[in-house]
Structure formats: C-alpha cells, structure tokens
C-alpha cells in the first residue's frame, strides 16, 4: 500500500513542479521515488496484508509484479528523457505517466472487481491522452482517438461482465466469488434452475474486455495503428507496462475466481492463443516499419502468455512473471534503440538499420541482444520465458497448442533475425548522426545485462513464486 502512496505522491509532486519551478530536478526526484517504491514493496515481502475490507491484497504475487512494473518504469523514464523535452507540457507528461503507473499497480494487487475496474481506467485514460501527446502529428491524433473509442467499448464489455457475475454470485469480492464457484453443489443448483448462463456469459464478457487490453487476436485491430501512431516512448510504455499489468490482472482474476469453471472458458482461450500466436507472427513478417513489426511481435507475445493462463497449474504464475520481466526488458531495449534511430527518420524501416553495427556498435549490440531475447534464443532471458511457459502448458496437456506456439516462434526468428542481419550487413548506412545521451547509454547497458543475467540465472526469479 505504501508503494501506491509513493507513486501517487510522485504524480502530485510532478504537477507541483510546474508551480514551484523545480522542473529541472523532476527526473532525479521521480527516479529516487521509484527506487523508494521498489524498496517499500520489498519490505512487504511475505506479509500478505489485506487493505480496506479486502479491496487490495499485497501477496507475493502483487509484490513481484509491482517490482517488475517499477523497474520497467525506472528504465522507461531514463530512456524517454527526450519525450519530456518540450517545456510547456513536461510536468503534465510526468504526472500522467505516474498516474498510469498507479493504475497498473492497482491492477496487479486488486482483490475486488471494483478495484480491477478502477485500475484499468486509471491506467487507460492517461494512455489515451499520451498516445495523442504529439499534437502536430495526424497519426498520433488518430492513434489517440482509435485507442480511446475501442478502449471505451472494451471497458463496456468488462463492466457488463462484472455486473453479470455480481448478479449470479452477489459479490464483487474475488475470494468470495472463487469460493462460490468452486462449490459443485451450488453450481448444480444453478444448473438445475438454468442460472448458469448468466454466470457463463459474464465470464465470457470479462474475457472479451481483458483480451482487448492484452490485444489478443480477434480484438487486436487497434494495436498496430495505435502503436505506430503514438510517440515511440509511449509505445514502449504500452508494450511493456500496460501489457504486464493487464496480464497480471487477467491471471489473478482467472486463478482466484474462475479456475473451477475451466470447461467454460478454456476452449475459448485455446483458440484465442493459437490465433494470436499465428496471426501476430505471420503479419509481423510482412511489415517494413520497425515500429509496426514490434507491434505485431508484441501481439504474438501476448499469445504465448495466454498459454500460461490456459495451463492453470502451479507453474503458470511463475512463468508469466518471468516472461513478462524478460519481455519487458528486451522491449525497452529495442524501443530505446528505435527512438534513437528515429531522430533521423520519420518512420524507421528495417532498411534504416543497415550498417548500424559499423556506425555504432553499442546500439547494434543492444538491439541484437533484444531481438535474440524476443526470438527466444538461449541463453537469453526470452528463451527461458518461453521454455517455462511451454513446459507448464505441456504439463497440463496442451500438446497441439505448444506445437503451434513453437511454429510461431520459428516464424518469429525469421523477422527478428532479418533486423540483426541488416544491422551487420555492409549497407550504405543512411543513419548520419547518432547522439546517445548518457542516460540512454545506461539503459542500453542495463537491458543487455538484465537480458543475459535473467537468462543465466532464471531460477532467481522463478523460484520466488
């Protein structure tokens, strides 16, 4: 809970910075505050405290995901210093991002449907605005409007689902719903009365709402346009923090509430996961814009993580956590490089990376490590993320889906390697001047180290849960 207080206070401080003229010191303040937030979550380890009538629960699950979110945010703030460059709206950007982070934190630690809804909204509304924060660009405006309209529609589905589940069980509390739905006698009574349809349609509606937020395939249409149109740092935020928070919320809901009713939703998720992996990877192959390719690749990664939700055994939580961490680190690295390259090009295509290795070895190396990690090449973090997820799905007997996922990863290797080959080829090198700030250099080094370290010592994270 202290973590939430710290993040909210940081958001308010960011707003006050405009008034009291300490804008220059805002970045150090935010970075120190984020470290404080991480420290305060670590202090809550193993305490399992509930707050305010079980509205939020800080169990180890919530703490670990909070730490992943805060570390990603820490790296993100360092990489996107330029995004806060324009003087007039600098503090607004800081405040909005920090509030979005508060929403993400609520989404990983909620234990009541009301808090889930509030968390999703607090995360989404700043994102709608930030997607359109490049006011002169038409693409950015389009991204913002598209994201807002589709997001509002999906939230409607989610809310409708929550109401139906409330109608069936009479409570918003995750534990009570879980206990109710796990008692077979009650389900039997309902089925006799024909009341299970209400519950089932509620579950499916919530599934639709959440699948939109993680951009799983039939609900993914917004993602490529929004990811491409939004300013690159905002895209990085959406691809990492928003996705991690949405998955944590998804998993928490389905493990605590609906795990007893697997036969209702598991087939649906099976199909969704298969489609997401295949469509995401195949479409990514055909993209020339790097940003769009990363958007489709982030869709396909959502498919892999759905596998862990489907597996629903005692490994799935650990594997989703590890995957989210590995994926976030690699994505932040890739987007840092992309945002540096984009200073030269309006829309960086794969060709604009040609000959980068000769011009700037650090950038090329960081991008290579990120791509290899996303492709799932051992010994990097991404490989073990996939390995754990596939093992946990195999243990639950989803052989065919794992085969589809492996096929998808092979397609993924093709387009990730295309980038690497371009960078190391002796191209003409359209990139003329590359300026990397010290902070961005630090971020690149940290992402490289984290990708390698998480890959060499995956047990460190996975054994925590």
């Amino acid at each position, binding site marked *: 809970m202290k973590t939430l207080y710290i993040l909210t206070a940081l958001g308010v401080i960011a707003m006050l910075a405009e008034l009291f003229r300490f804008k220059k010191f805002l970045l150090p303040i935010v970075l120190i505050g984020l470290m404080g937030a991480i420290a305060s979550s670590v202090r809550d380890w193993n305490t399992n405290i509930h707050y305010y009538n079980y509205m939020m629960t800080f169990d180890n699950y919530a703490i670990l995901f909070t730490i992943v979110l805060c570390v990603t945010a820490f790296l993100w703030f360092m990489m996107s210093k330029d995004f806060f460059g324009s003087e007039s709206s600098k503090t607004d950007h800081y405040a909005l991002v920090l*509030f979005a982070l508060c929403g993400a934190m609520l989404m990983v630690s909620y234990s009541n449907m009301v*808090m889930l809804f*509030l968390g999703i909204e*607090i995360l989404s509304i700043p994102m709608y605005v930030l997607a359109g924060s490049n006011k002169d660009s038409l693409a950015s405006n389009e991204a913002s409007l598209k994201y807002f309209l589709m997001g509002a529609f999906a939230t409607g589905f989610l809310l409708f689902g929550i109401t139906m589940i409330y109608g*069936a069980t009479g409570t918003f509390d995750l534990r009570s719903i879980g206990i109710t739905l796990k008692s077979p006698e009650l389900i039997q009574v*309902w089925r006799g009365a024909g009341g299970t*349809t*209400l519950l089932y*349609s509620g579950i499916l509606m919530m599934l639709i709402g959440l699948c939109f937020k993680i951009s799983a395939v039939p609900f993914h249409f917004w993602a490529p346009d929004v990811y491409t149109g939004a300013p690159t740092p905002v895209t990085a935020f959406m691809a990492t923090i928003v996705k991690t928070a949405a998955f944590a919320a998804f998993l928490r809901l389905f493990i605590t509430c609906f795990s007893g009713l697997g036969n209702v939703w598991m087939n649906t998720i099976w199909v969704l996961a298969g489609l997401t992996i295949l469509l995401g990877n195949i479409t990514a192959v055909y993209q020339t814009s790097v940003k769009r390719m990363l958007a489709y690749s982030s869709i396909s990664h959502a498919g892999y993580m759905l596998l862990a939700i489907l597996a629903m055994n005692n490994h799935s939580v650990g594997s989703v956590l590890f995957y989210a961490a590995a994926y976030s680190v690699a994505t932040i690295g890739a987007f840092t490089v992309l945002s540096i390259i984009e200073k030269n090009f309006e829309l960086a295509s794969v060709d604009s990376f040609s000959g980068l290795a000769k011009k700037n070895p650090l950038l090329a190396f960081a991008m290579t490590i990120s791509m290899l990690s996303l492709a799932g090449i051992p010994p990097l973090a991404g490989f073990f993320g996939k390995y754990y997820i596939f093992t946990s799905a195999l243990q639950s007997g989803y052989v065919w889906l794992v085969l589809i996922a492996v096929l998808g990863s092979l397609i993924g290797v093709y387009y990730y390697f295309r980038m690497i080959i371009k960078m190391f080829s002796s191209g003409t090198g359209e990139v003329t001047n590359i300026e990397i700030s010290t902070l961005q250099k630090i971020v690149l080094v940290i992402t490289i180290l984290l990708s390698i370290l998480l890959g060499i010592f995956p047990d460190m994270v996975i054994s925590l849960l």
Partner: protein
Amino acid sequence: MTIYLFYFLSFLAILCGLMVVLEKNPVHSVLYLIITFFAIAGHYILLNAQFLAVVHVIVYAGAIMVLFLFVIMLLNLNKETEPHKTNLVKFAAVISAGLLLVVLVAALRGTESLPSPSTINADMGLVKNLGKVLFNQFLLPFETASLLFLAAMVGAVMLGKRDIK
C-alpha cells in the same frame, strides 16, 4: 399499478432507444436519448434506488447530453457525412450483435428461477444506506476514483493547452 408503470417505462425506453438509432437527424437522436435516460431513471425509482435515479438524471440526461448536443451543433453534423458501409460489414455487424442478443436474453431468462445469492437489502438504494456502504466497505474505491478524475483532468488540460514556444 407498479406493474403498469413498469410496462409503460419499458415501452418508452425501448421505443426511444430504437428511435435514437433510426432517426436521421442527430439532434433528434439526442433528444430521444434523453427520453430513454429518463425512462431508465424511472426504472431505478421503481427498484427503490432513488440516489441512482437522481445521479442518472443529473449526469446522463443533464451533463452528458448537453455535451452531446454541443458537439453536434459545433461540428454541424446535420449533413449526411457518414461514410457508406459495405453490405458485408453491415451483415457481419447484424450477425454478431444478434448473437450477443441471444446470449443475453438466454442469460437473463435463466435468472427468473435462480435462488437469491445472498440476502439483499431492499432499501440499499436509499441515499443513507448507500452512503454508509460507500464510506465503510467501499472507502478505498471511492478515494481511488479521485485519482482517476485527477488523471483525466490533467489529460484534458494537456490536450487543450497551446504549446508555448
């Protein structure tokens, strides 16, 4: 008596809801929407939820509808500027919306004989009881909502203000 009122309000809500969609003139659509909102507010009163009814009228029929009308008049949407949709898209939309309708009707039909899940206080909708629940059990969501509004406000200001160069 109440049952007739219920049927009247439901008829009014559905009729005006249909008119919102079928009416060509957007301003008329909005006016029908206002009647729909009032009919739904009437339903809330029938369900003994006065607070919800009042809030519904103030927020939806009041604030949001004014905003709607304002935007429509500002954008001058009276001309038919909407892009023409292909028949395939219309067909797909009708099928998916129809399927959703079937599911919802089936779901709600099943609730008639459903055993009441827990003892629900019939006077819960009164302002006094609602306030007690809101400031005891649901205190945290109530306070957290302020964060949501603050974020929305900052976002609106950011989008609205002119860049000083």
